[in-house]
């Protein structure tokens, strides 16, 4: 389950941020996960919650934005969404590298990433009396 390795990398990065910014409490983490990555959002969220309990990140929300796949064809200069294979087993169309325009092999340009986009945190104002 590589989601655990990825969640660990994420949490390490966030704890590093939390340590450097002790007044800031992270409440939400926004991730971008590509359609062509092999990362399952629900498993990633589960791992995140499991390993953040008893850390300053406990209770923070993980928001995952799916990034669409894009391909470019070196043969016919097509750029855009990939061709999907509908007849594969699951009922979910599968992205392929076959060029929708000329049928040759394309290269993926987008949709492979897994990145932290932004953090949302709260900062308590000091009490003045």
């Amino acid at each position: 389950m590589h989601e655990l390795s990825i969640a660990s990398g994420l949490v390490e990065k966030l704890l590093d941020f939390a340590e450097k910014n002790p007044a800031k409490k992270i409440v939400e983490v926004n991730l971008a996960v590509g359609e062509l990555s092999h990362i399952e959002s629900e498993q990633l969220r589960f791992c995140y919650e499991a390993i953040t309990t008893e850390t300053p990140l406990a209770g923070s929300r993980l928001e995952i934005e799916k990034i669409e796949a894009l391909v470019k064809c070196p043969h016919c200069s097509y750029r855009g969404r990939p061709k999907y294979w509908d007849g594969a087993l699951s009922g979910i169309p599968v992205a392929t590298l076959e060029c929708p325009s000329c049928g040759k092999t394309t290269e993926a340009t987008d949709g492979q990433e897994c990145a932290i986009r932004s953090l949302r945190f709260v900062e308590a104002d000091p009490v003045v009396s």
Partner: protein
Amino acid sequence: MLEASPDEIYDIELEHSLLEANEKLAVENRALLDRHGITAIDFMGAIGSGKTTLITKMVGRLKDRIGVAVFNGDATTSSDADAISAQNVPVVQIATINGCHLDANVVGKGLKRIALEKLKLIFIENIGNLICPAEFPLGSKARVVVVSVTEGPWMVRKHPHMFLGAEIVVINKIDLAQVMEVSVEQLVSDVHKLKPNMKVIPTSTKTGAGLDEFEKALLAI
């Protein structure tokens, strides 16, 4: 007295790739290999697909002509590494314990443990798993996916993503295709549906079918 305002919410942009650390190490591994003129080839595939046997056969064919070493990823055992060691080539056993994939870091450590000077080819046998290894490049020049007919007729359709990043697909154990009632042609055409220019080689390590072609394809990388 001045009351504290309620907690305010702030956002910060933080573009940070979670796969980048591994990718950076993979690039370093590749640079080290390139400096020594070594081609590394990553083998991926399910447990029991025949990765170790295929690698052992290729090592047997090549070791007298060129320097070959094998990195062997295995969750707990060293049985695969032991099998390949019998060929008297350098073998690095990488036990991932509970890890489901090799990463560039462990491969980089392995590269420090062997003498690279005399090597031309390193076969890296990944953990038997068709999902996780695809996300973690190791620094290899090409990736081979091994599927066997004994895994049933739908292996390619069940794990499409694994194939998109590979250069060669081996359909192994074709001597058993009839018994298994699995169509090799169907598996080949499924792969081509995902990636039209994929090199697909049906093999049997038992009869030797396809092994010449596989050897040629490896040397052409």
